[in-house]
């Protein structure tokens, strides 16, 4: 019996502003989960702090709403404990690219099999509209009344430079593509990164739905685009200033779990009998005699 959408929904009332891009990301994520026919209890979503961080409230999976910026290490921990789980991490651009930047960079190179959906609205929503590392130059916010003077973080460029094995970008309004990308990301072995453009209708009047609808092109529809060539992917992202959607780069390689000595041979940690055999223990002690 296939999983239904209803099984992935909760009764929680929405905390988001009407029109918020996060609704689209939520719907896409739910659709992806349903299409993969996953059981809700086998899915864990780790979310950050921010408007985006509420996403777990609406999905009837196991959810962990961690502290600001620590979405990825928390998700890593869950996966280490039980690798049978499908683990997704989701959070805002502030959460992931400001306070969480280091974890983002390190999770990509560590390549643990989780999927990270960055809900990118180029602003701090929950704290009511300060500049984010993803914000464009000149962007006027509560904390940049004279316009942003910092060079923006381009998550796609970073992901390619940091060695991520799966890099994609979707748009909250294109539910079908975003759902499909999330699905592929989850199915990818190793760390997968989906940047989800998710407009904030309340505090970002520049990077609006229209802005993206006009500016984005879809590489999934470009038959000449080759998502397996890292250098070309990088050039494409630079040249389009990241205004593309689709699967940008994918590389099959063993995940951390595959490489970690003995990890895949043992059952998931959470399912193990934790009692030690006295013999094995004595063998360890012998080394100290």
């Amino acid at each position, binding site marked *: 019996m296939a999983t239904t959408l209803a099984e992935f929904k909760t009764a929680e009332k929405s905390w988001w502003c009407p029109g918020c891009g996060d609704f689209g990301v939520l719907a896409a994520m739910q659709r992806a989960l349903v299409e993969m026919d996953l059981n809700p209890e086998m899915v864990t979503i780790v979310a950050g702090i921010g408007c985006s961080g509420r996403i777990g409230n609406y999905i009837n999976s196991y959810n962990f709403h*961690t*502290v600001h910026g620590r979405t990825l290490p*928390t998700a890593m*921990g869950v*996966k*280490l*404990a039980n690798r049978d789980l499908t683990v997704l991490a989701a959070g805002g651009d502030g959460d992931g690219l400001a306070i969480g930047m280091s974890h983002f960079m390190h999770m990509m190179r560590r390549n643990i099999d989780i999927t990270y959906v960055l809900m990118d609205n180029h602003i701090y929503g929950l704290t009511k509209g300060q500049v984010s590392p993803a914000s464009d130059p000149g962007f006027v916010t509560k904390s940049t009344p004279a316009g942003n003077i910092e060079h923006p973080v381009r998550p796609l460029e970073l992901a390619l430079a940091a060695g991520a094995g799966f890099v994609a970008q979707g748009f909250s309004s294109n539910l079908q593509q975003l759902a499909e990308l999330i699905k592929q990301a989850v199915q990818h072995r190793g760390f997968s990164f989906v940047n989800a453009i998710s407009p904030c209708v309340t505090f970002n009047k520049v990077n609006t739905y229209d802005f993206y609808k006009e500016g984005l092109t879809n590489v999934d529809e470009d038959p000449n685009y080759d998502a397996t060539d890292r250098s070309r992917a990088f050039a494409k992202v630079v040249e389009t200033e990241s205004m593309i959607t689709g699967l940008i780069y994918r590389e099959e390689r063993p995940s951390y779990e595959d490489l970690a000595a003995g990890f895949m041979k*043992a059952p998931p*940690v959470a399912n193990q009998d934790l009692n030690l055999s006295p013999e094995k223990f004595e063998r360890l*002690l012998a080394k100290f005699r």
Partner: protein
Amino acid sequence: MDLISWKIGGEQGEGIDSTGDILATVCNRLGYYIYGYKHFSSRIRGGHTNYKIRISTKKVLSTSGDLQILVALDQDTIDLEYKELVPGGLIIADTKFKPHLPEGCEAALLPVPMTEMAKELGNLQVRNVIAVGVSAYLLGLPLQGFEDMVMEKFGKKKGMGEVNVQALRLGYEHAESLFSVYKDFRLAPGDGKARLLLIGNEAAALGALAGGCRVMTAYPITPASEIMQYLIPTFPQFGGIVVQCEDEIASITAAIGAGFGGARAMTATSGPGLSLMQEGIGLASMAEIPVVIINTQRGGPSTGMPTKQEQSDVFAMIFGGHGDSPRIVLTPSTTEEAFYDTALAFNLAERFQCPVLVATDLAISLNLTTVDNLDLSRIKIDRGQVANTEELLKMGRDVFKRYAVTESGVSPRSLPGQKYGQYLATGIEHSETGKVQENPDNRVNQMNKRFRKLQGLDVPGVRYNGAENPDILLVGFGSTTGAIDKVVDELTEDGVKAAHLHVRVMWPFPSKEIKAAIEKAKRVVVAENNAQAQLLRLIKMEVGHYDHVESLLKYNGNPFLPSDIMGKCREVLG
């Protein structure tokens, strides 16, 4: 003799540690008790370093201020260390640096052409082993054990075992022919039982393993790194995994994630890392997720004195996070306790669904001690209240109350994979079902529930030994316990009614037990390695102020010597 202190000193990077380890291991195998104390600084090469090894036919739990045999690899060592030598003490010195005795030094200088002999053997690296040979003779120990040891240690590389054996013999024979008059420091025979010889960090790592921990996420830091380093190759043998993280924040939050996911998980760090983990620890407290943090205390604050002894994180461990966040803090005092308490911590973390800190200190973490046994059968894994899978299924979805307000404060938790056990774990205040909830009554109920849990802690908070109504009660925690026990023994021998109260659970504070003990004693001295009298201040906060209680603080980077404490006792006893 029943107890000898031996020390080797030189420049950092000259192989001091491995030389000491050879002596310690062989003596341990001969059935002696060892207490090895490394004095080092936080640089890799250069700077004086030394390694003191106490060898005894009975258990030793502290270092001391006296010394029988000193191996000096440079003049600095003599100049810095000679004062510790007992009258008639021996200095084995390399002739290469033209050793001389400082004025007033009553020790005997035993020059040995160590470097020269090593050169003759064609391997400068065996220099220190020659000193071991000399020492073996002076200690009256048979060479066989040493020969076996160096073969084990160096034998894998062709010819290396043999040259080390030769070095041992050269040293031994040199001593035999020249130093046979020095008979004072021959050890009474050991009992031949090869006990365990390990540092507290290894014991804690074994305790974690025995306690069911299978996930560790950590970042290197002195003096905690050995825990991670021991477990990296060990956990995989038992289905577990260790990840060296990018920092301490990742380490603690990953461990918490693993705890949420159903593993027993931990991290290990020291002061600076502890400070960085405060937010994460609060998360575990709020979201009620089991996690264990080993904090190997060192000299603070800030980077402080990374290689020096201190016990100054008591406040930070209990009160360090913002807001009101319940935690359990254990303070083991010996290598054995590092083992048992670490194992215990995982039971407590899961039973009380909260962060448990295991606080050792540098002396426990790094000092090499002989331990009679680590008894696996004493460790019973108790995973606390986990929701029943069948019952959850019967309930159906959206019914399970992950944070049910119960009398004990503990609510059964579900684990990912359990159908209909789904919930939201969050660091935000939440309802019984785990939804974000800011309602005032709910807030109070949840806060009270979280604190109520700790009232159920059923572990003895203190250990008491000595006279019932003592003239003097010594209170301490962590590694100080060894020195205190020594003093209590000595005082008792002197006819003074003395006792020792050792605080084993630092939080929730064992106020009742401490109150009772303090009020029965005529005089009380609280001895601790920090500047703010953190334990005494906790006593004041949680128990009361007493005129007959005094503070003894040592925060110069060194552990207490029994003599420090004895001095204070004599002063107090008048």
